[in-house]
């Protein structure tokens, strides 16, 4: 009955054309390993969503897996821009629903609560709003109680939400440490939830602090145990981001050619173990281990 499975099996829960709520926030807690697997499987036609896109999104766009983005922003922080995402937008290769990050979160929140829409006071007066109205995901309305102008945002229920978490028990009760950005709302809204964790812990450990459980087992479709599955992004209280590899990736992301070389070297034909070996192996990973007092 445990949802514990392999990365390959978990990736099969993502079907071509699905809307996938991603895990990360720029350079932290990205579901890198799942993005790699989707690139290897040549997933196609995905819509990807996040309040802030990170490396995982750039991989999926650069490799041609995604054709639509629902997002607020995205970058590799000071390491650079999401080169493949920005390039695809500039060239019209992906369609975008670009909104504020709170608008993405409110769309997930509405989806997670099963309410059809949520009002918001952002977006008003900006150039972001008209394309969202045209796309049918926002409307200008009025608060029926006060007649004040308000934007109504349509609920978003992704087919799949993926979250890279610090730990779960074997039944899939997942615990996230540190900030959770849109993970609560995205996993609550999604039809299927994939959880990837650094550690499998006992159910007694989870039950000892049940307040920390992000997503309960009966909402988890697949659980994958994959230490360093978020590399090169950071996992709070587990490991720091890999600055060297992020710089290398940011550089590769500047052009499609360099990106394709990066994918050929680090993604295609690899598995998670050989990817970790290629980025420096145990010696490199040891340097990233978080200081328990600092969390990074």
């Amino acid at each position, binding site marked *: 009955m445990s949802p514990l499975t392999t990365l390959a099996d978990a990736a099969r829960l993502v079907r071509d054309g699905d809307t996938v709520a991603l895990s990360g926030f720029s350079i932290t807690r990205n579901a890198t390993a799942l993005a790699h697997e989707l690139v290897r499987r040549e997933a196609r036609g995905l819509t990807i969503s996040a309040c802030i896109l990170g490396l995982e999104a750039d991989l999926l766009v650069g490799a041609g897996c995604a054709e639509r983005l629902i997002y607020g922003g995205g970058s590799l*922080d000071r390491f650079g821009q999401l080169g493949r995402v920005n390039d695809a937008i500039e060239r019209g290769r992906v369609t975008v629903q670009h909104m504020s990050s709170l608008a993405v979160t409110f769309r997930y929140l509405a989806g997670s609560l099963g309410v059809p829409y949520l009002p918001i006071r952002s977006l008003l007066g900006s150039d972001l709003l008209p394309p969202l109205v045209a796309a049918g995901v926002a409307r200008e309305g009025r608060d029926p109680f006060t007649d004040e102008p308000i934007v109504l945002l349509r609920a978003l229920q992704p087919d799949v939400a993926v979250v890279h978490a610090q730990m779960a028990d074997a039944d899939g009760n997942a615990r996230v440490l540190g900030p959770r*950005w849109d993970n609560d709302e995205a996993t609550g809204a999604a039809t299927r939830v994939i959880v990837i964790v650094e550690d499998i812990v006992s159910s007694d450990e989870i039950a000892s602090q049940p307040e920390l459980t992000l997503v309960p087992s009966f909402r988890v479709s697949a659980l994958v145990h994959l230490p360093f599955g978020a590399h090169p992004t950071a996992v709070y209280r587990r490991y720091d981001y890999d600055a060297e590899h992020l710089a290398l990736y940011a550089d590769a992301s500047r052009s499609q050619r360099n990106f394709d070389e990066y994918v050929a070297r680090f993604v295609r034909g690899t598995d998670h173990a050989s990817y970790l070996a290629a980025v420096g192996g145990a010696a490199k990973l040891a340097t990233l281990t978080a200081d328990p007092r600092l969390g990074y």
Partner: protein
Amino acid sequence: MTTIESFTTSELMVVAGARELRDGELAFVGLGIPQIAAALAQRTHAPRLVVLNEIGVADPHPIEFGVGNADPRHWYGARSMGSFSDVMGRLLHRGLVDVGFLGALEVDVHGNGNATQVARDDGGIRRFGGGGGANDIASLARSTILIVRHERRKLVQRLTHLTNPGFLDGPLGRARAGLRAGGPRRVLTDKCVFSIDEATCRLIVRSIHPGVDRDELRAATGFAIDVPGDVAVTEPPSSDELRLIREVIDPQRRYTKGV
């Protein structure tokens, strides 16, 4: 204590920014100069300034600077960590945030900003990371402080893309759009500090940085500005402020060395 030493423009901007932040405020501060400015304010006149990070962190007390909101270095010491909606919903959208200290790719004369894309010379667009929560902050905070490099292509007559509402088309702009009161209270550049004319909601020069020439200022600004004859000079950093920046807040000189 107020001996004038030599200082960088970044240091001047940090100090000018810090002075605009008030004790007890809830504030979003962008990476770099805004963040250093907040740290300086907390160590001088605003010990209870609360910094918020949209990722879901409130009131951190970092002991070193990282690379962005997603860097756990910027979460250190926080006694509350939660969701994007905790910070951006329950504090910002709830109407409790006093100020957002934000950068932009372009700013216009009414303090509207663009965080998404600019025009290329070839007629195409150049896309950037997008504002993330910047539209939310510009729409919902009680005020903003904008920071932008002082160039004609950045202080523009007409934005490529209006993503962060300032005063929109003037004094009635926000109310007509349904936005709460708000908008920029200052715009900080590497050449001057702008404030807002209450009657017109246009940027007006409040002070020029030491050594900046009026003609240079006009030439570097994409919209018409008035520079009064008696315009003030931006007050330089005190030696205490410089010491705090250099020795305590940014000893590695990551953000305050340049310009």
